[in-house]
């Protein structure tokens, strides 16, 4: 499992150690459920988010 405490420190998130300990089990569970799913994504699948072009002024 990931070392969430070191990860928080490395990214300067300033999350107190006791709070990291509190959330680590949830993150571990999420990590173990999510990681295998990512292996199944075909290369040609794009994210389900849309980017909307904003027309330039005067158009």
């Amino acid at each position, binding site marked *: 499992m990931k070392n*969430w405490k070191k*990860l*928080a420190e490395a*990214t300067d*998130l*300033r*999350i*107190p150690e006791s*709070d*990291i300990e*509190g*959330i680590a089990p*949830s*993150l571990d569970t*999420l990590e173990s*459920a*999510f990681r295998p*799913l*990512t292996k*199944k*994504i*075909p290369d040609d*699948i*794009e*994210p*389900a*988010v*849309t980017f*909307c072009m904003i027309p330039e002024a005067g158009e």
Partner: protein
Amino acid sequence: MTIIEAAQALRQRAVSSAELTEAALKRIGELNPKLNAVLTVLEESARSQAKAADEELARRADRGPLHGIPIAVKDVFETRGVRTTCGSVIFMHHIPDRDATVVEKLRAAGAVLLGKAGMHELAYGITSNNPHFGTIRNPWDADRIPGGSSGGSGSAVASDMVFMAMGSDTGGSIRIPAAFCGTVGLKPTSGRVSRYGVMPLDFSLDHMGPLTRSVRDTAITLEAIAGFDPRDETSSKEPVGNYVPEPGCSIRNVRIGLPQNFYFERLDPDVDMAVRRTAAAAEALGARIIPVRVPDIDALNVVGRVILLAEASALMEKYVDNRDQFGSDVLALFDQGRLLPATDYVNAQRLRRMMQREFAQLWSRIDCLFTPTTPMAAPRIGDRTATLGPFTEDVRLAATRLVRGINVLGLPAISLPCGLDRRGLPVGLQIVGRPFDEALILQVAAALEDSGIGIPACQTAVE
């Protein structure tokens, strides 16, 4: 009394909007100290709106079925000149200079805005146990949560304070309080109802919809609030339909999918029984019950959690260093989101696309899907785990397990009260439909309601 009944009484001059409004204010005065459902009561402006509604109706300037009807909106909807807190101390003094599109539309429909409903802090949780504005309570049992995050909306509608209250739903936040409080609650299709002027929890999972005491009241409200809004980039141009089911509407030959996997696993037996009994009632009305296997909903929920954690934390990034401003449950979720890598977020959105395609294949075989809304009735305030037969499960994860995935898919879903458990607490049926087919799920729900599926009025509401 429902919106339809009140609207009829208004037009028959059997009652005035001013009288409905005074009755609602009296009700709030009596019950709100106990339930804490309404955060801000707008007595003066509500009286003035009611007076104007009566004058318009007297000169036959009729704005439709919501004209003169007292309502509330969750305190996530911006209201011009009226404090909008999002249940957070950060926005304790936020007074918007605009109305949300939904509020604009409800005002245009003549509704009387009686107040702002309380909610879980920042709409990020299911208990509505708010550390800044107090605990919101369930009118069926004041020692139990009303659900959330639209807990004030559910509590206010079930206790007869208002006829309708708007909610928002990112991972079940309309349907969960609807199920726990015994009201109808609709999460429309993504893009069907504008998000403009609604304080966001999440960019791609938020949906706006009503909680009411009847299916047709929900349909009436949807007709008033649905439609394209150029101020919301995700708003759809799909035409708005006629949503209010005809009296005596039929569901003959409607194909109802009953999941053989996931949705009936780990349930309170009373919930299982109530939902299956309702499916049997639908079959007796002529619908066809079709057993189906649904795609991997556990995986869908995991994807939904990654997206929500990442988007919500991104949204609140500028506030989180001041940790004292947040309740511990909400802060823990923000911390989790900040620790997820960007690649996980992108891959969650890719998985979302895959799962939308997988789920869409179901619609060739069925017209709608029946599931329980929640695996159990309302838990007690402070409970961290729920016991579901032989299983014990975290309350938040259990309450969102059957509803969260539908937000990831963007599908319309309604929660309909379908029975009481052994303690006399409401149980909800969730009906999920095709994209933009709100009319069908409302029709099915109305036919069931017409046939007697439902629950008695909440005792708090009739005391």
